[in-house]
């Protein structure tokens, strides 16, 4: 693997509009139930700010993907750019990957009897385009980045947020920028 692509999400910019979720659904015409991308709101009491704060999660294309490890049919592969691709044609719907992922991102589609997840729009990336969710994000809260040591050393870049599983489990390829102190004042 020559590099590791991933997402950088800024909770400072995110307004929780779920435009990224809808862009993903529009791009792939997915059924209603599986949500490849999902916007979450942090519990106010778990973050030391009286703010309304969101983060958006799809497959994290982990450096240590548990889904890939447990899949009995080899439906998961990791590309050279670090994207974890799920091949739905190979999937037999055993659901073991849904048990193994702490982010609940591979999701079982009961209508199709198979698991689905975000493939980071690799076909769009191969044509030089941005992933659908990144392209649709109005406030520019979601970015496609290369996960590097330099990125992790930047001020304000976080590996996790309160309410997320410990990154030690899978080493997810997502980074966050939390809200700045005192800027957002709206309460639930």
């Amino acid at each position, binding site marked *: 693997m020559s590099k590791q692509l991933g997402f950088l999400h800024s909770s400072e910019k995110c307004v929780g509009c779920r435009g990224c979720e809808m862009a993903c659904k529009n791009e792939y015409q997915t059924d209603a139930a599986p949500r490849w991308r*999902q916007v*979450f*709101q*942090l*519990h106010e009491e*778990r973050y030391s700010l009286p703010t309304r704060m969101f*983060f958006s*999660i799809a497959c994290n294309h982990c450096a240590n993907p*548990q889904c*890939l*490890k*447990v*899949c*009995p*049919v*080899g439906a998961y592969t990791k590309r050279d750019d670090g994207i974890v691709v799920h091949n739905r044609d*190979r*999937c*037999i*719907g*055993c*659901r*073991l990957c849904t*048990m*193994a*992922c*702490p*982010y*609940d991102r591979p999701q*079982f589609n009961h209508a*199709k*009897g*198979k*698991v689905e997840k975000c493939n980071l729009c690799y076909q769009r990336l191969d044509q030089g385009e941005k992933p659908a969710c990144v392209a649709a994000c109005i406030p520019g809260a979601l970015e496609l980045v290369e996960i590097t040591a330099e990125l992790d050393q930047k001020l304000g870049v976080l590996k996790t*947020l*309160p*309410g*997320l*599983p*410990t990154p030690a*489990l899978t080493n997810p390829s997502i980074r966050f920028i939390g809200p700045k102190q005192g800027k957002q004042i709206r309460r639930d």
Partner: protein
Amino acid sequence: MGTVEWPLVLFTVLGETSIGILLALWWLDRTPLDAGLYRKATLTSGALLGLALVASLFHLGHPEAAYRALTHLGSSWLSREILFFVLAALAWVYLFLQISRPNGQRRVAAGIAGLLGLFGIVSSAMIYVLPRVPAWNSAQTPLFFLLTTGLLGALSLLFLGWKSLSPAQMAGLMYWSLGCVLSSLFSYILYFSQLTGMSPEGLATAQILTTSPLFWLRVITNWGAPLILLLPLFKRKRSFNPNLLLTLLVVSGIGEFLGRALFYLSAVGIHISALK
């Protein structure tokens, strides 16, 4: 996880009982064993193994493509489980051929089938040793699966062979069953104490268990009743009551099914706890 997963409950418990019978046969066959019992136990084991394999297919979204599950042996315990169970089924066919011959190598065949099945059961258990699920992520998961194998295998053979087994063989199976019940009870107490001090997810699992009526029914059927029912058998070794043996098998079987159903139902995985 979070649901009962009946196909998996049936597959694991029936498969473990089947392999347990084969292993018990192999173990008892050190001393002369009645050919009729061998045949009866082998056929029972085969029927249970067949039912287990069929039940496992109902868990899949696409059962017609189940053969593909053999293609990721390098890292997937599910692939290894299927491989070993298929090999155990083939070894069972070999065993069946051996018991049909006058001088067949039945003990070797039972040993091979049992050993392959044992590998399958350990692989089955290892599927659930997932870092995401604290309630499963320990050596106790394979231990529970192996204890089910030992208990139901021995009790099945005890019931099937109550007429033809020698008192020493019966006593051996009873001591083995008692050992499995006691090991299961004490390891579960240890498991439970670890759950409550482990993590929020472990604590949530413990809460689901203690508030579920199924758990208390399991306490009675899996540990309480077998211990009570085994005692009279130890007192009257020479006059075994088949009704008592059948009751012991059925009650313990119910306990094991409940235990396995709760295994799936009560597991809480590490997850995103933010608001959706």
